[in-house]
């Protein structure tokens, strides 16, 4: 290990020779820093299978899900599909500060990249499975405004979808409307779980650090390396942990949670209530693996006062160009870094995490941190059209 660290020190010094506004040699990475870098990979890890969804990982379910994802007939007006907000060419989001359904909503559209790795879904974690979360916008009156009867009828009466359903689930669409709604959501989830973001410049650097490949590591820009060091020293990985750069849990980071005068978005506090009340949670009858361990988090999650104003920690991978935070409060990545640099502790909720504190970064440090964050994204190959459901 000592030899590898020495080699890393040399490569970092070499990397500092890259053109930079901050022409200072970088000190070698410490053993702790190497550990911190390595645990953000490798990328991509295998997508875990969801035993609560019997078509998860099955090609016929994935293809049906992609067709349904693009099908506006799921909505009440026949004019709104999942793909309308989760746009493939916009990193599966929409580029808006607040999502637009039938009306403007209170939260930003979450990207679907890497959603198959998550254990809580939505900004407030009201969904404990990807398929349960996929039901929510279909039924939500302010979004697709649909119902089980409409979705079931579509699956039964459209010959191509009925054929796709039969291939995915091994039987023709039945007469139980709510079950067909859930099955449609399970196909949607099977498709979404395949959306894995591409490898990035950071991943190449991370792998080079792990293997001691000096030449490969030296290709990582010096500004990004300085930003990475700030990221590690600031303990950002307490929440933005692991290969996905999120621990998948929730935090209050000082973003206003007023939606309009006199109204607040309670975030995780409301999410846990909605989770408990949902007939589609993993403790209910639609879980395809009721005896499995998948419902363990749902069974044990506890509603705490500190959940008020908490929102899910987003992944930092493939973040697109913004806006950012749960309500699009910050327009650019520079604004996000400035927020964490200057966050006012007095604006944090009383039970907020004390590890959120003003970092007090200078302009060059903020620029370096942004440079690092940008290396967590990469160019995306345009998605081909889905294969036909049935010939």
């Amino acid at each position, binding site marked *: 290990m000592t030899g590898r660290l020495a080699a890393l020190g040399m490569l970092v010094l070499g990397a500092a020779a890259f053109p930079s506004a901050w022409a200072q040699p970088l000190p070698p990475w410490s053993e702790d820093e190497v550990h911190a870098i390595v645990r953000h990979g490798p990328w991509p890890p295998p997508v875990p299978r969801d035993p609560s969804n019997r078509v998860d990982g099955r090609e016929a379910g994935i293809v049906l899900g992609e067709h349904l994802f693009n099908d506006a007939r799921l909505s009440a007006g026949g004019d709104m599909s999942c793909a309308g907000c989760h746009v493939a060419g916009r990193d599966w989001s929409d580029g808006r500060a607040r999502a637009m359904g039938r009306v403007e909503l209170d939260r930003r559209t979450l990207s679907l990249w890497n959603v198959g790795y998550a254990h809580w879904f939505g900004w407030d974690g009201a969904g404990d499975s990807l398929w349960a979360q996929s039901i929510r916008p279909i039924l939500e009156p302010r979004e697709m405004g649909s119902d089980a009867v409409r979705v079931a009828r579509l699956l039964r009466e459209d010959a191509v979808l009925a054929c796709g359903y039969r291939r995915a689930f091994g039987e023709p669409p039945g007469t139980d409307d709510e079950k067909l709604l859930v099955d449609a959501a399970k196909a949607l989830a099977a498709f979404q779980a395949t959306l894995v973001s591409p490898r990035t410049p950071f991943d190449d650097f991370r792998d080079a650090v792990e293997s001691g490949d000096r030449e490969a590591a030296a290709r990582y820009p010096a500004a990004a390396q300085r930003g990475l060091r700030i990221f590690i020293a600031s303990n950002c990985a307490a929440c933005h942990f692991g290969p996905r750069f999120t621990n*998948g849990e929730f935090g209050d980071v000082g973003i206003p949670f007023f939606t309009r005068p006199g109204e607040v978005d309670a975030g995780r506090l409301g999410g846990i209530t909605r989770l408990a009340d949902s007939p589609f949670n993993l403790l209910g009858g639609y879980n395809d693996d009721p005896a499995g361990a998948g419902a363990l*988090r749902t069974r*044990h999650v506890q509603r705490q006062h*500190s959940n008020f104003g908490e929102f899910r920690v987003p992944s930092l991978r493939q973040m697109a160009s913004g806006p950012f935070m749960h309500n699009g409060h910050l327009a650019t990545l520079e604004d996000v870094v400035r927020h964490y640099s200057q966050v006012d502790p007095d604006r944090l909720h009383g039970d907020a995490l*004390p590890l959120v504190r003003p970092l007090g970064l200078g302009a060059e440090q903020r620029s370096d941190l942004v440079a690092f964050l940008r290396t967590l994204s990469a160019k995306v190959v345009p998605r081909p059209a889905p294969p036909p459901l049935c010939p």
Partner: protein
Amino acid sequence: MRLAIAFMAALLLAPPAWADCPLDLGRGTGLVVFSDHYIIALRPEPLHIEVGEPFSLLLNVCTKSDRPAELVAVDAQMPEHRHGMNYRPTIVALGEGRYRVDGMVFHMPGRWEISLDVRAGEESERLSHEFIIK
């Protein structure tokens, strides 16, 4: 190393009344936590605790006085961050002082302190142990 020393010390200092206390859970990669009145052998399941991944604890609770002991509550906190777990563990008594605790999740890397509330008759006590999660 500290754990091994604590385990050895627990064995050396154990008065005769503890001789019947099963410490199998504390051997190998398990732990032994003790006070003047209680000795608790425990083992995480799975043995390696991963950030954000649910795990269980298997425990054996004994008393110095050889009275029956009860595990009343288990919790965990991150003292530096002043927060606990987002999950409420449940305790299942397996008989003869042995317990299984399910629903533990350490959702951040760093220092976690588990607290074990035990009771024997009217006498109760909180024992604790630190885990460093990377």
